């Protein structure tokens, strides 16, 4: 299977991520620093969307970046773009943290959130990112309500498909198929299909 999935968007104009990752796999710290500069913003943004707590989000982002460093040699180009690989790692870590944190008391999470307020401008937003955001929003509108809810509850909030089914009040099987149907539409709208 040699299909190459192309990601359009801001990352295409940056440095060649595959080349950087190859260097990283050989222990090149400078290349890792450059890769970090490209992927850290998207990783932190996604993780924070899922976790909401800024301090925990930074911790998870740090774990994700160390994981990228550790497993760089295992990346397989024929299985997708570097950015998709990194974002998959990030989402997985964020979801794991959500599910383990559900066992912990909410009080602790609030205390943690208050104890560490990041000193940077949270509303700062690059123009490129705004365009990307608009395209994603436009594509999400192409989905039916149920498809959109299923995809966003799972992806942005880290809900399992059982939780998603409960929240939406629909059978399990329905959620599974709506997630898939929704992602098919998203894939086609964003132009990431083969």
């Amino acid at each position, binding site marked *: *299977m040699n299909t190459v999935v192309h990601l359009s968007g801001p990352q295409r104009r940056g440095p060649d991520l595959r080349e950087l990752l190859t260097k990283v*796999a050989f222990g090149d710290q400078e290349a890792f620093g450059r890769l970090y500069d490209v992927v*850290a913003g998207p990783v932190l943004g996604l993780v924070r969307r899922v976790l909401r707590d800024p301090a925990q989000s930074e911790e998870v982002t740090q774990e994700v970046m160390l994981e990228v460093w550790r497993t760089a040699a295992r990346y397989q180009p024929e299985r997708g773009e570097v950015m998709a690989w990194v974002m998959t790692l990030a989402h997985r870590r964020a979801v794991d943290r959500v599910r383990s944190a559900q066992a912990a008391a909410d009080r602790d999470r609030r205390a943690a959130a208050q104890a560490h307020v990041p000193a940077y401008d949270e509303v700062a937003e690059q123009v490129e*990112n705004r365009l990307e955001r608009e395209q994603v929003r436009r594509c999400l509108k192409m989905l039916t309500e149920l498809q959109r809810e299923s*995809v966003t509850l799972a992806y942005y909030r880290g809900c399992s498909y059982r939780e998603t089914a409960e929240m939406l009040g629909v059978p399990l099987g329905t959620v599974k198929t709506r997630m898939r149907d929704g*992602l098919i539409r998203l*894939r086609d709208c964003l132009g990431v*299909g083969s």
Partner: protein
Amino acid sequence: MSTAADLHTLTGAYAAHALPEAESLAFERHLAQCPACALEVQEFRAALARLGAAEATPVPPELKLRVMAGIGSVRQLGPGGPMDEHEPASGGGRGRLARSWPKFALAASVAVALGLGGVAVNEHRQAERADRQSAQLQQQAAAFSSLLTAPDARTRTATAGSGVGTVVWSESLGQAGFLAAGLPDLPKDKVYELWFNDSGTMRPAGLLPTTTGSLLLTGGIDGAAGVGVTVEPAGGSAAPTGAPVMLMPFV
């Protein structure tokens, strides 16, 4: 999820990490047999990555310092192994030590060399001692690496001035480590000392050799509630002599 057709509808839930562990593992076995499913998962992940990237946010600069300080002690895996989601995070395999030593290793070696400076020690013994020191440092770096990549590794961060300290701990290993990035410089006769907080009683956990670097804490977690950092006279103290500059609870 009894038939292949049923399984195929799980591509979406799998790509979005919405399957419980057991179903996810079962689906991965199916993926290995179903190239069409694998392609679909790949495309879905590319689409979801776009959803994620659209959330991109400015990153606080100290996070990069922490990450760059951390990679020095993380062993990289070799190529060829699986990249499955369920691979144990601490899986050894054909890894190798990261090329560069953590900065603390170099600093510690220099400190040892300076300590021996005024004493007549024959070169052979000095070399033996250096070898032992190096072996200890290698052991420590390996232990730190397995700590950072333990499946249940957790981190908590605090700041001191413009510097950042991160405690990393794993309940399963019962160990903790500390990563420092750009902590304020201290006068020569002072040192940063780490402590385990045993419900209010501080237990010595080691001295930080440099203001940027990493340290595997001495002694196990053993039910400690967190880690604290104080400034102590060179050589360290048996109990803290001042207020903590950083406190990081294990929560």
